C-alpha cells in the first residue's frame, strides 16, 4: 500500500492549489464588472425564457388542478390509443422525411462539390430556396396542383375526388422543405474532406465509384447521420405543413395545438408537448455530443488546392438529370403559388387579377406590418445576444460556462410548439405577465432563433487568433470594449448570417407564436393559416409572395448595413498623412 500513499498526498496538494487558483480567477472576474453583469444577465435571460417555461410544462403535466403531484394526466394520455397513434405518426413521418431529404441533399451536395456540370450555381440556389420561403407555401402549391380543384388532378387528369390530404403529400412537402438542411450540412462535410485524400485514391488506380464507396462515403458518414437527425427534428416540430395538408394523419405538434386552442385542455397539450420534446431532445443530444466526436474531418486552417471536379459524362449526365428534375419540380411548386396569387378563383376562374394583393394591403396589412415590426425588433436582439453568448462561451472562463452553452443551444432542440405552450404557461401571471404583448412574441423569436447565430459565432471565433483579443486587453481595453471594437467587427460574417436567419425565421414562424398571438398582435403567418381554414387559397398565395419579397428586401438591407456600411469610419482625430 506504500506505493499508493504518494500519489494521494500529491492529489491533496494539487487540490489545494486548484481551489486557490479558482479563487484568484473569481477575484479577477470581480474586477471586470461589465463581464460579470453580462454573464449574470444572460443566465437570468436563459433561466426565465428557456428553463422556466420548460419547467412549467413539466409541472403542469405532472399535477392535477390543485397543483398536487399526480400521474393521472399522463396515464390518461398514455391509455388513449389515438395519442399513441399520433406519437408513432410523428416518428414515422420524421424517419421517412429524414431518409428522403438526406438522400436528395447528398445527391445535390455531391453534385455541386464533386461534379463539373452545367448550371451548378442554379442548382445551389434551388437547394437553398426553400429555406427562405414562408410556411404553407408548398402545401398551398400541393392543393393548387393536386387538390379538389387541382390543375393536374382535375384539370389534366379529370379525377373528381382525388384526396391530396394525407401522409404522401406531407412526406413530399416536408422533404422539399427540409432537404436544404441536409444539403447545407452535407456540403459542409463534403467540402471539408481534404481533396488530396481522394486524389491519393485516384492515384492508386481506384475508379470514381470505388473512391466514392471506399473513401468519400465513409468519410461523410458523420455528416449523413448529422443531417438525418437535423431533418428528423425539423420534421417532428413542423406545424404548418401537417396543419393544412395532413388530413386525418395526426401529428404531435398539431394535436397539441388542437387540444389547447380547440378543447382548452392545456394539461393534455403539455403532455403531448413533452412527448414531442423527448425524441427531438434525444436527436439533438445525439447530433451534438455523439456525432461531434466522430467527425473525421480535419480542419487544416487554409483550404488546400482547388478540388478537381470530375467531368466524366457517365457521372455528369445522371447527376445533371436528377438535379434538373428535382429543381424543375421545386420551380413548379413555387411557380404555381406565384400564378395562384394572380388568378381569380383557382380551378374555376383563371382570369388574372390583383384582387388578392389588394386584399393583403387592405385587410391583411396590419398583421403583415406586425410581422415586419416584430421581426425587425427581434433580429438585432437575437443577433447581438447570439454573438455575446458565443464570445463568452468560447473566450471567457467562468463558473457555469458549459451550462450557458448547453442551455442556449437547447432551443434548437425545443419544438416551437413546446416553446409556445411553455410561454403561455410561464408568462400569464405576475411578475411575468406578458400574455398578449409584443414583448412575448419578440422573446419567442429571439430565443428560438438564437442557436444559429451562436453556432456560427462560435465556429468563427475558434478560427480567430486569440492573441488579437489579448492584444486589445493588454492595450488597456476591458472585456466590453474588446468585444465591441475587436471581436464583433471580426464576427461580421457570422453576425450577418445570424441576423438573416433570425429575420427569416421570425417572419416565417408559426408553431411557437400560434399560441402567443393576440388580436392586437396578430402576425402574417397566423393570418395565412386562418385563410387556409376558410379555403381562401389565392389570398394565402398573395400573402406568401409578398412575404418572400419582404424577406428578400430585408436580406439586401441587412447585407448593406452589416457587410458594406458596417465599415463606416468613426470620426478620427485630425488624421492626415
Amino acid at each position: 500500500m506504500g506505493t499508493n500513499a504518494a500519489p494521494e498526498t500529491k492529489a491533496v496538494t494539487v487540490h489545494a492549489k486548484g481551489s486557490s487558483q479558482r479563487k484568484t480567477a473569481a477575484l479577477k472576474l470581480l474586477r471586470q464588472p461589465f463581464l460579470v453583469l453580462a454573464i449574470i444577465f444572460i443566465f437570468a435571460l436563459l433561466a426565465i425564457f428557456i428553463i422556466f417555461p420548460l419547467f412549467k410544462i413539466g409541472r403542469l403535466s405532472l399535477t392535477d388542478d390543485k397543483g398536487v403531484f399526480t400521474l393521472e394526466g399522463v396515464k390518461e394520455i398514455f391509455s388513449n390509443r389515438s395519442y399513441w397513434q399520433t406519437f408513432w405518426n410523428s416518428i414515422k413521418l420524421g424517419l421517412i422525411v429524414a431518409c428522403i431529404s438526406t438522400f436528395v441533399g447528398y445527391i445535390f451536395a455531391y453534385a455541386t462539390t464533386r461534379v463539373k456540370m452545367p448550371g451548378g450555381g442554379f442548382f445551389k440556389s434551388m437547394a437553398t430556396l426553400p429555406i427562405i420561403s414562408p410556411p404553407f407555401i408548398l402545401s398551398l402549391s400541393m392543393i393548387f396542383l393536386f387538390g379538389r380543384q387541382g390543375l393536374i388532378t382535375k384539370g389534366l387528369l379529370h379525377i373528381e375526388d382525388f384526396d391530396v390530404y394525407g401522409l404522401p403529400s406531407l412526406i413530399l412537402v416536408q422533404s422539399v422543405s427540409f432537404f436544404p438542411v441536409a444539403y447545407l450540412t452535407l456540403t459542409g462535410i463534403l467540402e471539408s474532406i481534404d481533396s488530396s485524400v481522394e486524389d491519393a485514391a485516384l492515384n492508386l488506380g481506384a475508379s470514381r465509384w470505388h473512391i466514392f464507396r471506399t473513401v468519400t462515403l465513409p468519410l461523410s458518414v458523420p455528416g449523413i447521420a448529422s443531417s438525418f437527425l437535423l431533418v428528423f427534428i425539423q420534421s417532428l416540430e413542423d406545424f404548418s405543413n401537417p396543419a393544412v395538408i395532413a388530413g386525418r394523419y395526426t401529428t404531435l405538434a398539431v394535436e397539441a395545438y388542437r387540444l389547447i386552442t380547440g378543447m382548452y385542455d392545456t394539461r393534455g397539450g403539455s403532455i403531448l408537448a413533452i412527448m414531442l420534446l423527448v425524441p427531438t431532445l434525444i436527436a439533438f443530444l445525439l447530433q451534438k455530443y455523439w456525432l461531434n466526436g466522430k467527425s473525421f474531418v480535419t480542419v487544416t486552417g487554409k483550404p488546400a488546392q482547388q478540388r478537381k471536379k470530375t467531368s466524366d459524362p457517365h457521372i455528369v449526365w445522371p447527376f445533371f438529370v436528377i438535379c434538373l428534375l428535382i429543381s424543375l419540380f421545386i420551380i413548379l411548386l413555387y411557380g404555381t403559388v406565384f400564378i395562384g396569387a394572380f388568378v381569380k378563383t383557382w380551378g374555376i376562374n383563371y382570369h388574372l387579377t390583383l384582387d388578392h394583393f389588394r386584399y393583403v394591403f387592405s385587410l391583411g396589412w396590419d398583421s403583415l406590418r406586425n410581422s415586419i415590426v416584430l421581426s425587425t425588433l427581434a433580429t438585432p436582439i437575437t443577433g447581438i445576444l447570439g454573438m455575446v453568448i458565443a464570445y463568452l462561451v468560447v473566450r471567457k472562463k467562468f463558473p457555469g460556462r458549459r451550462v450557458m452553452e448547453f442551455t442556449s443551444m437547447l432551443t434548437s432542440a425545443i419544438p416551437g410548439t413546446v416553446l409556445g405552450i411553455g410561454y403561455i404557461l410561464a408568462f400569464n401571471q405576475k411578475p411575468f405577465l406578458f400574455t398578449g404583448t409584443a414583448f412575448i412574441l419578440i422573446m419567442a423569436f429571439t430565443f428560438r432563433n438564437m442557436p444559429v447565430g451562436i453556432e456560427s459565432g462560435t465556429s468563427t471565433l475558434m478560427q480567430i487568433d486569440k492573441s488579437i483579443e489579448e492584444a486589445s486587453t493588454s492595450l488597456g481595453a476591458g472585456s466590453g470594449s474588446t468585444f465591441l471594437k475587436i471581436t464583433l467587427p471580426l464576427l461580421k460574417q457570422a453576425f450577418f448570417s445570424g441576423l438573416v436567419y433570425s429575420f427569416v425565421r421570425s417572419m416565417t414562424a408559426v408553431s411557437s407564436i400560434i399560441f402567443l398571438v393576440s388580436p392586437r398582435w396578430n402576425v402574417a403567418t397566423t393570418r395565412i393559416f386562418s385563410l387556409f381554414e376558410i379555403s381562401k387559397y389565392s389570398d394565402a398565395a398573395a400573402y406568401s409572395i409578398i412575404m418572400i419579397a419582404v424577406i428578400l428586401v430585408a436580406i439586401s438591407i441587412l447585407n448593406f448595413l452589416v457587410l458594406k456600411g458596417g465599415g463606416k469610419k468613426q470620426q478620427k482625430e485630425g488624421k492626415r498623412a
Partner: protein
Amino acid sequence: MSTNEAGETSFRAFSRRSSNVTLKNITKVFASLDTKKEITVVSNVNLEIAEGEMVTLLGPSGCGKTTTLRMIAGFEDPSAGEILIGGLPMTTVPPNKRGISLVFQSYALFPHLDIWDNVAYGLRVQKLPKAEVAERTRKAIELMQLQGMEHRFPAQVSGGQQQRIALARAIVIEPRVLLFDEPLSNLDAKLREHMRDELRSLQKRLGITSLYVTHDQSEAMAISDRVVIMNEGVIMQIGTPREIYEKPSCRFVANFIGKANFIPCSVVAYENEQAIVSVNGKTMRLPEPGSRRPPVGTQANLCVRPEGIRLSREETILGGKVTRATYYGSHVEYEIEVNGLSIVTEQNEAKESELFHIGESAWIKLQPELIRLLD
C-alpha cells in the same frame, strides 16, 4: 525619474511609478488532457527585472518561457507564487489594468482597422483627448518609420512593417513594462537582425522595463542586459550574455549557448580559487574553474568552447585524428577524434601551409584560463 519634469506626456507620469518586475516562487501547473495527470510547466521561478532593464527568457520550445510571460501579462494565473510590478502584487489585477504592453509572435494586429487605428487603439481606450491621441499616434508612427501608410490595412503591408506596427501600437501607450513573445520569429534572417538591433536601441532610448522571450540564442545575446536560461520549467542560469557564454553553470547552458566541448577529467584538489584536475593521466591547473565545484576525487568534465582550443603538431596532453574540416571563410572548423571523443575547434589561421587535413593527426592545446569545470 525626477518630479520636476511635470508637463510631460502621461508616459512620464505613468512610468514615474516604479516598474520593476518581481517573480516570487512562480509555479504553473496545467491539467493534462486526460485530467488525471498534471503537468508542471513552470516550477518555482524567481526573477527580478530592474527598472529599464531588458531581460530575455531563453530556452528550447516547451521550457515554460512563454507561459511565464503570459502570467506576467495576466493571461494566465500562476498556480502558486506571486508576481509584483512596481512592488505591487498583480494577483487580482486584470490584464488590461497592469500597464503592460505585449508584442505578439503573430503580431495580432487588428485586421479590420487601418494602421492609424491600430496604433491609436490603446490611446482611445484610455479616452485621452483627441489632440493628444493624434499627437502621440503620429509620433509613434514616425518613430517606427511608418509614415505614409496610415490608411493601409495590416494585410496590405509587408511582414517587417507589420512588426513595426505591432511595436508602435505597444509603445504608444507608454507602458510600464513591455513584453515580447518571440516577436522576430516570422521575419527572414536579414530583417530579423536589423529589427533586433533597432528594437534594442529603441528599448534603451525609451528605458522601458522589458522582458523578451525567444528560443534564438544569438538574438538573446544581442539584445539583452541579462539572459535567463530556462529548461523544463526551471531556471538554469541568470546572467549577462558574457557570463552565460563564458561561465555556463551547467552542461545544458553550455550546450544551448554556442558550441561546447566536454572533456572528462577527475578532480584532484582545489587551491584557493583554482582547481587541479587530471586529464588523460596528466594534471592541469585551472585558474578560473567557475562556481561549480565537483567534489575532490570525483569524475568531472572540462567545458571548453571551440575557440579555447588550439590545434598543434607538437605533442600535448591530448591527441587525435582530424575527422572533419569545414571552411567557413573567417575560420576553419575542425572535428578531432580523441580517445573516441569528438572535439570541435575553430582555427583562424588562413595560411594554406598551416591547415590540417582529414586523417592527419593533431594535438590539442587547451588554454587553462578558458576552461570551466562542470559535473
